[in-house]
Structure formats: C-alpha cells, structure tokens
C-alpha cells in the first residue's frame, strides 16, 4: 500500500507543493483524496530532497490543504486500452463518459509514449484520397502523415475535417480508417457536430472519442491529446489498423501548457508561451507515422485556430516547423463563398512528392500540380494589378491568367462539403482549367503530357 501524505503545503493555480515525501520519482502519477472521498489526479513536476512539486490534472476547487491526502502510485499516467474502445466516448482523462461500462483493459499504456526510433520508421508514401480537390490534387495527404489545418475563428474547419474523416480512403484498398477524435477545449456544439456527423455516417462504430469541453478543467487538456494518441498507437501498431487522428483545437492545448508554465514562474518565450513549446508539441505530433514491418499507420490531422489569423503566432508557427505541411483556410475565400475555403498557395504537403505519380495517382500529377500552382499564383498577381489599374492595364496573357485564377477558385477549390471527387475527376478538372491557357505557357508540364491531356477545343473556345 502506497504511503499517504497529509502534508500539502500550498496550492497555487494548477500546482501543489507536498512536503516530507520519500521515494517519489519525477513524472510519477499521484492521487489526491479530498475530504469527501473524491479522487483527483496529479503528477510530479519536480522533486527536490523531500519536497515534491506536483501538477494537478483536474480543478483544485474544494481542495483543502489540511484534510486532503496525497499518495503516489509509482507509475506514470496510463490509459487502459482494448479493442472495445471503438465506438466509445471518453472524457479528457480517458474515463468513459457515454454512460457505458469501464473498459476491461487489454493493456495499460503510458500516455507519454516513447520516441520512435528514426531507423524503425517507414516513409509515408501511400496516397490517401480525401475527395477534396485542393488537398488531393495540390496538397496530397499520405498515410502516416501529420497535416494540420490552420484555421481562424468562425471558419468551417470542422466541416472540412469531418469531410476528410468521412471520405478518406486509400486507392485500391478495402481497408477503412479507424478514427480517433480528440476534442480539446472546444464548445459542446462543435463537439456535437463531430459526434452527430460520425453517427449519421456510421463512422462512429470505428471511432474512439476523447472529449474535453470548454467548461472542463483547462489543465486536463494537457493529457487529452496524449490519451488520444496512445489509443491510436494501440489501434495502429497492436491491432494493425489504419488510424486517422483528428484533434481540435491545439490552440487550447498550448494555452493550458502556458498556464502551467506561468504558475511555475518559468522564463517565458514568445507571447508568454514556454520555451519548450516546440519540444512539447513535437512530442505529440511526432507520434504519427508508419513503422517498418507493422501494417497499421497513424495519419494525424490536428486543427488549430490561428489567433487573429496570424500565421506567425507561436502556435501555428511551431506547428508548421514540426508537421509535414499545412492546409490553410482563408477568410477572404470564405467571404466569397468558396467552400472549403482552402488557400492553396500557402498550403503545403511536404510528403506529396512520394505519394503521387504513376502507379499511385497518375503520371502527370506532379507536373499538373506545379503548373496549377504557378498559373494560379500569376493569375492572383494579375488580379491584384487589375484592381488597382483596371483591366486595360493588363497584357492579354495576364488577362487570361486572371480569368484562370477566378475559374480555378470556383471550379477546382469550391466543391462544397458533400462532394467526394475521385483523383481522376480532380485531375480532369485541372486539365480543363489549364486548357484555358495557351499550351506554350505550360512550362512546368512535360511536352508528352501536354500532347496527351491538353484539351485543344477548350483553348479555342477561350480565344
């Protein structure tokens, strides 16, 4: 029986100091028993001599310094995992909150996981068809990738994420994705949107959900993503499933981290976030991937809302440095009714090059993609000029580019949240659009592909 301490010295915010402890380890999990018998969790942040500084995982409301006792459990925070988790809803600490029974554990897993040995990783290169042209065609997602959605307050990132969860499939494969969904500090309505959507489409049977809502203790949010990823690792690497992890919203996670850091009076980095925010976020994001000789994989789509749509804010900035690309939503496109409002130019998928091409999608995919980017970018520049100087100021070719860029947004990007386009359809729309431009303008496309795919009638119709 673990020793119980009734020596809580102080409680400040999420931190608590316990004196006179013996044999307590760094990062050890503890339980606090309140006077009325309630149990709360905590973990050791620092141990010096016989003093232990612990961090509460739950709120400190009702905690009495005199009458509460602490015992240390000799292990870290763990999650009970089992195949029965599928179809269940848990709270942010991994306890069932759908009214169902407790999970009978197949194994207990440390939620912090262990770093994957880079020599054991397998490179992600299997194309995932999400049915969204702006992603499949231009910012291709592959199995085992971590690709966040950078959004802003009020933008339809939830719809896009749900669409991806619904439509994602690997070509020529019957296997469906299992979905692990983690709600971190979002509103009931947003969480309910996801749950109803999973119910409506039947995805709920292959989903595991961890829900920490806006009114749940902020400090719990530090564990929620780790709970979700531990479940995902179990499903992927023990049960050989392909797992898609959706997580929203990373911004609230980082804020919880800042709260703990501030309480510890650490030297703050940018905007008050702790200096180790990068390392901490990496310990979450890097858990996605594939492992050699394991059949399963973890594909990770975290969502974060950029404060004031600012991409240089520390949270999106550090995320972008860790993840393998990003899908950025644009308020400007959203206002113009483009659905989903994906701004393809700053969006990026770093792993796309190995997931596309002959045998995966189609041989002309890479060239078409580069050409669409280049043409759209030039078209947008031309449009900016047009706004200032009027149509007459543009050269004939710039005018064509300008028209192209409008058509690109309306036909290629804007497809609504219910359309599921195959990669063939996406590529066909791409060539229809490129054929609005003269063939000799397509410098990024190899001649043989122009000969094969360019639609000459389209070009004539434009003239």
């Amino acid at each position, binding site marked *: 029986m673990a020793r119980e301490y009734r020596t809580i010295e102080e409680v400040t915010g999420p931190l608590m100091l316990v004196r006179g402890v013996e*044999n307590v*380890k*760094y*990062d*050890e999990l503890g339980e606090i028993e309140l006077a009325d018998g309630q149990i709360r969790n905590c973990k050791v*942040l*620092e*141990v*010096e*001599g016989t003093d232990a500084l612990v961090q509460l995982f739950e709120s400190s409301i009702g905690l009495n310094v005199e009458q509460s006792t602490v015992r240390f459990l000799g292990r*870290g925070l763990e999650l009970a995992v089992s195949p029965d988790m599928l179809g269940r809803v848990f709270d942010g600490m991994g306890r069932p909150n759908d009214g169902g029974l407790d999970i009978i554990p197949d194994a207990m897993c440390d939620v*912090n*996981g*262990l*770093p*994957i*040995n*880079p*020599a*054991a*990783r397998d*490179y992600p290169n299997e194309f995932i068809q999400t049915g969204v042209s702006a992603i499949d065609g231009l910012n291709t997602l592959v199995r*085992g990738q971590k690709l966040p959605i950078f959004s802003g307050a009020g933008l339809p990132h939830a719809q896009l994420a749900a669409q991806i969860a619904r439509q994602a499939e690997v070509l020529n494969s019957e296997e469906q994705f299992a979905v692990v969904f983690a709600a971190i500090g979002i509103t009931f309505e947003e969480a309910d949107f996801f749950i109803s959507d999973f119910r409506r489409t039947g995805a709920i049977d292959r989903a595991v959900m961890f829900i920490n809502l806006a009114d749940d203790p902020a400090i719990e949010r530090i564990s929620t993503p780790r709970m979700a990823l531990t479940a995902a690792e179990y499903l992927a*690497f023990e049960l050989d499933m392909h797992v898609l992890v959706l997580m929203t919203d990373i911004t609230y996670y980082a804020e919880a981290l800042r709260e703990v850091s501030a309480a510890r009076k650490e030297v*703050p*980095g*940018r905007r008050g976030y702790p*200096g*180790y925010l*990068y*390392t901490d976020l*990496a*310990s979450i994001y*890097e858990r996605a*991937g594939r492992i*050699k000789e394991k059949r399963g994989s973890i594909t990770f789509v975290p969502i974060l809302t950029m404060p004031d749509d600012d*991409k*240089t*804010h520390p949270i999106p*900035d550090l995320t*972008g*440095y860790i993840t393998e*690309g*990003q899908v950025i939503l644009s308020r400007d496109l959203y206002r113009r009714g483009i659905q989903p409002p994906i701004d393809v130019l*700053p969006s*990026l998928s*770093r*792993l796309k090059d*190995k997931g596309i091409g002959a045998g995966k999608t189609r041989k002309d995919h*890479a060239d078409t993609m*580069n050409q669409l980017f280049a043409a759209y*970018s*030039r078209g947008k520049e031309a449009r900016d*000029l047009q706004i200032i*100087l009027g149509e*007459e100021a543009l050269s004939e070719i*710039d005018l064509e580019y300008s028209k192209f860029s409008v058509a690109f947004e309306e036909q290629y990007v804007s497809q609504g949240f219910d359309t599921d386009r195959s990669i063939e359809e996406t590529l066909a729309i791409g060539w229809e659009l490129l054929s609005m431009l003269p063939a*000799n303008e397509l*410098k990024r496309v*190899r001649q043989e592909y122009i000969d094969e795919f360019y639609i000459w009638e389209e070009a004539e119709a434009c003239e």
Partner: protein
Amino acid sequence: MKRQSQGEVIKVSGPLVIAKGMRDADMFDVVEVSESRLIGEIIEMHGDEASIQVYEETAGLGPGEIVVSRGAPLSVELGPGLIGGIFDGIQRPLDTLVAMEGDHITRGAFAPALDREKEWEFTARCKPGDRVTGGDIIGVVQETEILEHRVMIPPGKAGTIVEIQSGVFKVTDVVAILETDRGAREEITLLQRWPVRIGRPYVEKMSPTAPLFTGQRPIDTFFPVAKGGTAAVPGPFGSGKTVIQHQLAKWAEADVVVYIGCGERGNEMTDVLMEFPKLPDPKTGYSLMKRTILIANTSDMPVAAREASIYTGITIAEYFRDMGYSVSLMADSTSRWAEALREMSGRLEEMPGEEGYPAYLGSRLASFYERAGIVRCLSSDDEERVGVLTAIGAVSPPGGDLSDPVAQSTLRIVQVFWSLDSDLAYRRHFPAINWLTSYSLYQTKVDAWLNDNIAPEFSKLRVDAMTLLQEESELEEIVRLIGQDALSDTDRLKLESARSLREDFLHQNSFDEIDTYTSMNKQFKMLSLVMQFYYEAQKALERGVDFDRMVGLPIRDDIARFKYVPEQEVDNWYVLRSEQLLDEMRALSD
C-alpha cells in the same frame, strides 16, 4: 586512472538532475545516473553539488539514486564503421538499437557506436622503426567502395613503431605498437576517441578559394559557397530549408557528408535512410549512402541530447577532414539546437538574454561554425595533406523573422546567406532563394576560379544577370503603379528576360530526375543561352524589330526546356540552339 566519484541525486526537474557528493568530478564529465545508467553530462558545479544534463528521459528518477562519474568528457568513437551509419545525439547506433530494443527508443539503452564484432581488412603503410607523430597515417582500411579510411596516430601521441602488420582486425584490436621517447609502449587500435566539445587540432588554417559545387543553379552560379566555408539557410516553415539541405547532402562535391537532423522530423531522417542508398553519387556512381553519416536527434527525442548532437556531428566530420578529405556538414536545424540550449539555461535559472536565450548563445554558435575551414592536416610527412570541412546550417526563425537572436548570431558569423522567401515558395518557385537579399562573400574568390576553369566570360554573365534581376524589381514597382503600357520596349524586354532568367534558370525542380543536378558546364550554357536572347533582342530592338514578335519566337520554348536536357546532350544541344537563336533573330530583321 582518475578517481571516479559517486554521488546521489537530490533534485530532478525535467532533463536537469542535481546530485551531491560530486566534488571529485570534473566539469563536463560524463556521468551515469541511477541503476538504469542514464547518460548525462556535468554542466555546473556548486561546492559538491553538480548540475547534470541528462541525455535521456528522466521520468521515474527520484532523490537518493546513485550518480557515477565516468571520469571523462563526452566523447565519440572514431574508426571504421561510421560511414552509412545512423547515430543519435550521443552516438548510439540507432539501427542497432532497433534490433536490440524494438521500434521505440527505451531508456538506458546502450550499444557501442562502432560494431565490435565486424572485421576490417587493414593494410599497413608504415613499418617497424618508422618514427610517427599525431596525425600520421599508419595504414588504411577500405571502408566502403569509395572511401578509404585512413588510420591515423591520435593527436598528441608520438614515437617509433615497434610492431605493425596488415591483416584482418576488429576495431578494438591492436594494429600497431608505438614506443614513445620515454620508453613507454602505446597500443594503437582502429578505434580512437575524441571529446566532442574540443576541436581536433591541425597545423594551420587556410583561406578558402575553390567553390564547392552543389549542382544547384542559384547556389553555384549566384551565391557559391567555398570549400571550407560556412553558409546559413534561414527561412520560415515551408520555404524548403530541408529540401535544400537534402539536395546539398545528395549532390555537393564532397568525399564525406555528415548530416545532422537536430530536433527535426523523424520522417526526414527516414527519407534520407531510404532514398540515399538508391541514389548514385554523380562523381563515382556508387550509392550516396557510401559516403554519408547521419546524426539523428529528432524533435521527440530527449532535448539535452539535441544539444550534444551538433558537436558529435562536427567531431566526426573533423576526423575525416584530418584524413585529408573534403567533408560537408549539414545541420538542420541550428534553431532547434539553440532551443535546447535555452531550455537547459532556463532550468539552471540563468539570467536570460534576448527572447529567453542564454547570453552565451552567440559565442557557442560562433565556436561551432569556426570549426569549419580548409586546413593543413596534422602530419610529420613532407607531403602536405589538406582537409576541408564545409559547414552549412539551417536556421528556423520564428515566423520567418530574421531579427530572431539565433538568425542574427548566425549571420554575424557565416560567409554565405541563402535567404529563403515564403512568397517565392507560395509561387512554387523552388529553391526559394531570394536573389535580392541573399549574398555570398566568397563571390570574388570563386569568380576567379570560374573564369579560369569554366569560361572566361562567366563572371560578366553573372553580373549582367544579377543586374537584370535587380532592374526587374524596380520596374515591377512602376508596373504596379501605372501599368505595363507605360513601359518602353527596352524595359519590357528587361522584364521578359528577367522572367526567363527566373523561370528557366533559377527555378530548379529537385524532384525531377534530370533537373535535380546541373553540372557547372550546363549551368554556364543555360545562363549563357538565356542572356544571349537578351543581348540579341536588345540589338534587334535597336534595329526596330517589333517586341511582341521576339517574345513569341520558338527558341524561347527551347530555352525553357533546356533544364530537362540530359547532361551528355548538353554541348550539342547548346551549339544547335545558339545558332537557332541567331537565325530566328536575323529572320525577324529581314
């Protein structure tokens, strides 16, 4: 043998452990913490209390556990078996660990860096009775098809060879015995050790003059790095830092490449591990992995080992430099290294400098880059052995803002600055090296070399091209204000030619088989053709030829497709197209 000291843990806070009873230990000694023997390094001493940065996850550590000093600073193992390996920040072999411990890195896992069982064919180059000093090559091991591993007398040792023989040896076997002047016997093994925080000695440093060719057009032609030079690639995320680093690791003209993945993505290291063995070295045709060493401390691996990783990498690089090789070192990313420094500094409760970084950030960075250079290697031979270590570091400034302390400290030191630009990246202009803000201080030295070795008019072409790009940015301002119509034909030609320069020369597709590497000969010919069009069109304008007709000439499509012409066809292709250009221009005037 120094006395080993043993103490006990009194405080644990993340990667920082404080132990008492350590009075006998030296600063920067390596220690083993607890029964699981976690590796750490002493970074501060207060009385008998030592602050230790632990290179592994410290969860589960508590006061009272033992700490044992190894009595030596953090060192790396040097010897045959390094090439083609992947090591973590403290040189644990990651591929061996997979076989031992499974897919994840567990705590306290240990394997020697160099395989103790593997046998190497050693060929002696000295005979008993020869007098040798530190740095002298006593024999060689053919480590890979393309790399001869030269076994040197460790620096600081000297004497007469008493025994030496060729044969098959393991790394710890004695291959030679020295008798020092004092009559002591020193055993020389294939394996030697060197402390990572101390640069390996050399005779003298020289000034870099020859360019290091990378096959990347914007770099070789416009912003070259010299052999033995230093360069930095700062840029926001998504601007292609890692792709550039990978391209340099693949194609840079070096005998040995050390690639340090410091706090970056795990998949990037996997990419290198899976792709390099399949790629042929442009010079020798053998797999690139046969000249590459990887140091991987990914972002999810313990933060303290990240701090050590760049020292581990550069010490290995110096070792091959001392053999007389040209070594290129890529560090991606030094910002993550600096963050590890900041985290330790914060835990030590040091007074922070800018943005929480410690005040010694600048001097640490400077001393790292200063270990690069072109040197005369240590040796008692009459023939000079010259070794080269070129260091290229990526910097990841927050939000792409170059006022960041890491970027600023780096820029003060390095000679070449490739500024990556997110606007170019959004336009998918890769490599997104901004030609207006980047610079290379080696330009003049390298120009002389290029004019002598490639073509006498090379530097003139380059200056003209650069002027054109400069003028383009000014003209674009005007266009933005008053429109294209306001420009004269001469200016429109400049804009059009600059566009061609950007799209047909500077833009380079790393994922295209042919375009990924461009020889210096092809670079010159591509640039020359683009500029010829400009020169000829200027003349034609003077003759009164209509501008729009020139822009529509068929030769322009050929210029655009030059990048996809295979190397062996380049010379022929160039001659034909230059003639075609002149013919078409002439036809316009008629």
